[in-house]
């Protein structure tokens, strides 16, 4: 027991939280990659696309959780609502990040790749994307932490995860579960953040090679 909550309950809610925040993060990245690529490839698309996806982030999460069942025809308690909503938020944050990342590739490098005989698609995967990793992972860290925070609101519509500890604590007028929930969220956010930072390091060995001659 911790703060009046069983360890096993905390564990279950934590796993749910990871699922509801993490899966949309990956889906959001998968959707943002082609969107961000389009925004860099066709310059005129960038302003509407980045403004448009950015606007998604301004929709209050509670409103989105309530609206989505009506739009998708899902049940109110369906996890799908939360997964879709969180994916939208991830896309909102990551499209710009991916566009910035691809845009950060030096012009000379891009031109050299084309001149060597890379087709556009192949160049994107083997030259542009690897070089965009530092920028993309930086955005991914922000999105991960944001997801961990926003998803807890879903407790209000009855989808269980760590946010449930807040509603329970509030209903029972007991600070214990609330502190446990906050602590677990903070730890989860820190772990995800560190994990992505580590992944970024592993994927970019050239950035740490010393300048020895």
């Amino acid at each position, binding site marked *: 027991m911790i703060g009046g909550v069983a360890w096993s309950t905390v564990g279950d809610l934590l796993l749910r939280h990871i699922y509801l925040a993490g899966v949309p993060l990956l889906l959001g990245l998968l959707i943002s990659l082609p969107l961000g690529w389009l925004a860099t490839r066709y310059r005129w698309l960038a302003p509407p696309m980045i403004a448009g996806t950015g606007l998604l982030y301004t929709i209050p999460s509670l409103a989105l959780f309530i609206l989505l069942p009506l739009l998708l025809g899902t049940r109110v308690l369906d996890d799908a609502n939360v997964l879709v909503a969180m994916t939208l938020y991830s896309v909102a944050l990551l499209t710009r990040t991916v566009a910035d990342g691809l845009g950060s590739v*030096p012009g000379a490098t891009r031109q050299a790749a084309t*001149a*060597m*005989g890379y087709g556009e698609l192949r160049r994107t995967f083997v030259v542009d994307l690897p*070089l965009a990793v530092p920028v993309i992972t930086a955005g991914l860290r922000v999105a991960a932490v944001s997801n961990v925070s926003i998803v807890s609101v879903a407790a209000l519509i009855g989808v269980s995860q760590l946010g449930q500890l807040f509603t329970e604590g509030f209903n029972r007028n007991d600070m214990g579960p609330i502190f446990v929930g906050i602590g677990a969220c903070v730890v989860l956010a820190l772990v995800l953040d560190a994990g992505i930072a580590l992944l970024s390091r592993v994927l970019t060995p*050239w950035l740490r*090679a010393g*300048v020895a001659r």
Partner: protein
Amino acid sequence: MIRFESVTKRYPDGTTAVDDLSLEVPRGGITVFVGPSGCGKTTSLRMINRMVEPTEGRILINDEDVADRKPARLRRSIGYVIQHAGLFPHRTVLANVMTVPTLIGWDKGRARTAAMEAIEKVGLTADQASRYPAQLSGGQQQRVGVARALASDPEVVLMDEPFSAVDPLVRTDLQNEVRRLQRELGITVVLVTHDIDEAISLGDHVAVMRQGGHLAQLASPGELLTEPADDFVASFVGKDRGYRKLGFTETQVEADPERTVSLGEDVPAGRGWVLVADEQEQPLGWVDRQGSGGPVQEEELHRMGSLAEVGDSARVFLDAALSAPSGRGVVVQDGRVVGTVTPERVLEAIRAQGGSDG
């Protein structure tokens, strides 16, 4: 070998980058496109490997229209060296150089062997092959750029302002290297620069272009200096073209014999400027024995002027004569003193030659 037939490049906004350009780049040798910014030299270069598509006209390589080939395949068959090297920062030097061999489908072993050979050719070590580009100096990076262009043994190598971003000393090194590689491999190099000195010292053929994408003159460097086609070429080539032309005048200058002395040797006053050399007859410097005599001390040595090697151009001989404190330029062969030449001697030789060969 590479033929431009009435090639025009016009952009949608109406600007004409290249206007009705017709020229032939001969096989082998270095052909330089030179001109002020906005003359269409880079655009012309990029039309060869279809980085830019012409609006009108066509470009043929070995009588084959480049427009008939798939851009990516065409580019893999042509080496390309870009300004600032444009290396892939996330790949090691070796992986960078393996790019084209891998793209054209060579197996890993063959690609690796070819890349290592190219890396050695440009004067880099196997140890440097495993580094990342950021770990190399600017000049070394550009060497990698050249190696990357050569790795798959292309017939044609395009170079877009390859040396403009490196400091002057390194630039001279790289220029010599490119010249040596071109001679060694017999490839056809098309090089773009805005630097007329680079064009003249490096090119076997120089195409001078002027604003609006017109070809002003295509000629050998010597001819360009002797007979510029018009005022534009004459002014672009520069005011001291008469002196620079000497760089292309192979003149038989007879060196006068010069008695050298060694360090410590006692030289009486009244001998004037005396050339000091070591036991191998390698020149060390000049010493003034006009007013006072005595043994030659290392500290009194005056720096030597430039040295002329037997077979060098008249410009080198003249410069040697003009830069020596004694007024006598030191002529060497394999590092040993052969004799000295006065400016008058060099000028006589030029006059005897008729002074107008190119």
